């Protein structure tokens, strides 16, 4: 049963299994375990990034395709929901239609980019994705009448998902089941389902062909696989999943802007999460996203305390100044890539 759910792709490391189980349990019970809205925001962010990073891993780690357009596809899903909700009103129907439109646009754009450029060379594909993603970002900021431009769009969501809504009169385990909790479970459930679908895909015959193409596209073609078709299919699938993650996350945030969805910074974050977690492992996305988001959110606070604790000493408080958190984050990444070239999962499985 568990083997089927995990598509026979077991963690293959006891520590990894424990870590994954802890992350799953904490995320599943987040509204009850973690007090405060900040913690729930973080949990939702982790869920969303796990899916986004895993879908990028499908491309980079499994198919060996380098794309810089992944946040663009994420943005298409998010903006689909936001534009529909902002212009058509806060019902379930506009949200569903907006998500569907965003996903369809992502799939078509991915297909067009793939067919246009994957025949040529991998590097050409990377460049095209960069160009298209930049163009899309410019387009979004120009069409401010529709997209809200640089300010982005605030929009309302169905009442059942808002903090004011109460599902039950009585609290459960001391937690009120508000619309916010329901919205969290919408994010969590969608992300879990998408992750398991991807885990199945990479362990399917199709997934095995992607790995063969990554290893040796020349031989994959020579044994009869039309490499272009498989690369295009992988590109579309990853784009669709990124767009779905974007749509769900937009509902959660009730806001979409260029900074949160389309920016190159997020693209780089995703790359780092894949590499830190371990490329071509799927589970690497879980660890990479969790660690990264936690570091992003709590490193500053941690440093503040450390700086205060070392206040009397020379130099140390200066280095631990919260303003330097990016420096520390960068250092942690360099060290982790240096010491775990196969990522955390690769390391835990003992082949790093």
């Amino acid at each position, binding site marked *: 049963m568990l083997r*089927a759910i995990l598509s026979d792709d077991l963690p293959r490391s006891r520590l990894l299994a424990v870590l994954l189980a802890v992350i799953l349990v904490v995320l599943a019970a987040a509204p009850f375990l973690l007090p405060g809205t900040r913690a729930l925001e973080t949990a939702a962010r982790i869920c969303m990034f796990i899916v986004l990073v895993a879908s990028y891993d499908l491309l980079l780690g499994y198919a060996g395709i380098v794309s810089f357009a992944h946040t663009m596809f994420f943005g298409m899903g998010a903006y689909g929901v936001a534009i529909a909700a902002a212009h058509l009103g806060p019902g379930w129907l506009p949200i569903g239609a907006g998500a569907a439109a965003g996903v369809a646009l992502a799939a078509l754009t991915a297909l067009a980019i793939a067919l246009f450029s994957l025949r040529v060379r991998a590097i050409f594909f990377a460049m095209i994705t960069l160009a298209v993603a930049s163009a899309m970002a410019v387009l979004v900021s120009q069409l401010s009448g529709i997209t809200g431009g640089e300010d982005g769009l605030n929009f309302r969501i169905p009442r059942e998902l808002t903090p004011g809504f109460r599902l039950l009169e009585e609290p459960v385990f001391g937690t009120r089941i508000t619309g916010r909790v329901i919205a969290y479970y919408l994010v969590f459930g969608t992300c879990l389902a998408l992750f398991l679908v991807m885990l199945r895909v990479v*362990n399917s*015959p199709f*997934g095995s062909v992607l*790995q063969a193409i990554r290893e040796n596209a020349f031989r994959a073609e020579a044994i*009869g696989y039309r490499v272009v078709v498989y690369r295009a299919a992988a590109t579309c699938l990853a784009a669709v999943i990124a767009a779905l993650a974007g749509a769900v996350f937009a509902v959660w945030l009730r806001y979409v802007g260029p900074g949160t969805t389309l920016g190159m910074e997020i693209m780089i974050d995703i790359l780092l999460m894949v590499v830190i977690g371990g490329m071509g492992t799927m589970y690497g996305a879980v660890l990479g996203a969790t660690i990264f988001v936690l570091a992003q959110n709590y490193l500053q606070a941690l440093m503040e305390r450390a700086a205060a604790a070392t206040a009397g000493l020379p130099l140390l408080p200066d280095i631990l100044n919260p303003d330097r958190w990016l420096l520390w984050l960068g250092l942690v990444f360099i060290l982790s890539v240096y010491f775990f070239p196969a990522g955390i999962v690769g390391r835990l499985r003992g082949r790093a």
Partner: protein
Amino acid sequence: MNGPSLETRGLTVRFGGHVAVDAVSCAFRPGELTAIVGPNGAGKTTYFNLISGQLPATAGQVLLEGRDITRAPVAARTRAGIGRAFQLTSLFPALSVLENVRLVIQARQGRGLRAFPRVSAQRDLIAAAEAVVERVKLTRLAKSPVAALSHGDQRKLEVAMMIALEPKIYMFDEPTAGMSLDEAPVILGLIAEIRADPAATVLLVEHKMDVIRSLADRLIVLHNGALVADGPPAGVMASAIVREAYLGGALEDV
């Protein structure tokens, strides 16, 4: 008499001014093993590349069972029945031996686009792959990543990949080059088995005279891209030895 399964007509490729394969016309029949010799750089591998499609021809045609496939892409030719084992080993290094072979069988059966069943549940594919791995005596290494294999074992797998395709045309490009004396017989035994199949057309680039004598029904000689001799091995070799200097030692006496 059967018609040819594979035929090239005036097949030519030019690289700038250099004619690497020069108007080669030749027909190959099922049940026949044709050895191909020629000095290094004669164009043997390039001739194979034109037949299996890795290189587009400048002029001429390739016909498979009478059908013109000169413009068909590589994957389509493979699916039509052209099998190739490469001179330079070309495998999926990070994947296991069994997985390399399983991927071939999966390709042959057109099952690569299935994205929802689990690979581990496709027992028939795995069993078929195990049988092929057994034939090349790699069963004890079936779970090892290919990158960890010795050169000789990688050469065996290279041949196994073609056998798993069950092609109509088998193209071996120096299959035993660089193999130790006790490893080569596994490959030569397999080639002998394939030759015994009356439906199989076999092309074999090979330098060793004794191998050609024992396996080949026919011998052709390429020189500077052109086909310069064609006939029963004994006759061609006799004349080839006379022209040894001219051929630049294309045959190795063993």
